[in-house]
């Protein structure tokens, strides 16, 4: 089990950190959440009953760790103008609920299908489909509005 966890970590680290960074809104916190999530998974590996996939079980722990990190997110103040390359990406995530955002991140960044997202978030695949479609529509409409 430990070997499987390590193999999953090494094979999916880029996706794991990308999703956790997106949820926390901070690269450092996201990376820390992944480390903390896998430490939890290592400690609790005997509680994995094998009723679902190991992948979904781990993703659930990672999402929970990222949510915890987001709640504890420290206050940050810029004391001077931050460096900028003159470009800031436009992504109106504020229009989505936190649950919608998590599904979007898991789908686009981790390439999880509806069933895997449903397992990771402990909801039904039908709910994932409907929620993701609504999120896509919202994002598409907002982005079209920005470009026009």
């Amino acid at each position, binding site marked *: 089990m430990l070997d499987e966890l390590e193999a999953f970590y090494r094979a999916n680290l880029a996706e794991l950190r990308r999703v956790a960074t997106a949820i926390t809104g901070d690269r450092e916190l996201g990376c820390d959440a992944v480390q903390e999530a896998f*430490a939890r998974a290592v400690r609790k590996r005997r509680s994995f009953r094998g009723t679902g996939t190991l992948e979904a079980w781990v993703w659930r722990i990672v999402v929970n760790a990222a949510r915890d990190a987001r709640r*504890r997110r420290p*206050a940050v103040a810029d004391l001077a103008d931050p460096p900028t390359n003159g470009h800031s990406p436009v992504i109106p995530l504020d229009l989505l609920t936190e649950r919608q955002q998590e599904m979007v991140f898991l789908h686009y960044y981790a390439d999880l299908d509806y069933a895997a997202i449903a397992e990771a978030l402990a909801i039904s695949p039908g709910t994932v489909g409907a929620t993701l479609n609504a999120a896509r529509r919202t994002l598409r409409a907002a982005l079209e509005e920005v470009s026009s």
Partner: protein
Amino acid sequence: MNELEALSEYIPLRAETPEWEDVMRRARLRRSPRLLVAAVVAIVVFGGAPALAVVLLHGGKPGLPGGADRSNVAIMLEPRTGRVLLEVAPWKGHDGFCYFAYIARSGCVPRSHQTLVTAPPVFGWTFDARVASATATTFGGKHVQLLVRRFRGRINATFFFDARRYALLRYIALRDSDGHVIVRLRK
């Protein structure tokens, strides 16, 4: 721009370096009964208003991340008990520092314009050399003087710390040597 392109730009995919040893270290850290006892003791000990001493040590101490330059570790001590509140060291190969604070919070930080605070415990840092003192204000209106230390040399940053727990912390004010507020941080 469609949503796929926007998401790709939002968090770009990047090559990552695995840190599995850190995962195992964290897993062992949480499981250790000795650490749990130390945590309880520390919470009790730090409940007062400790004065801090700053000393420089040569040689490593457990808790700092792997990237820390352990040949140049600065620490903040609670002098009555000798317990370590904070360890800081230059970040090897980077312009910044690594830290290990109050039992288990740790990380490495690149030099930037940012000032940061976490709570509880109230702990943070700034790269702004003007900061000379810091106070925390609770929602009850109580002002608490924080412990402030500036580490020079390669660390070149100022740290503030208070191990007491404030459930209703309103803001933290960082001031210059004339008492003028430089920045207010809200949790």
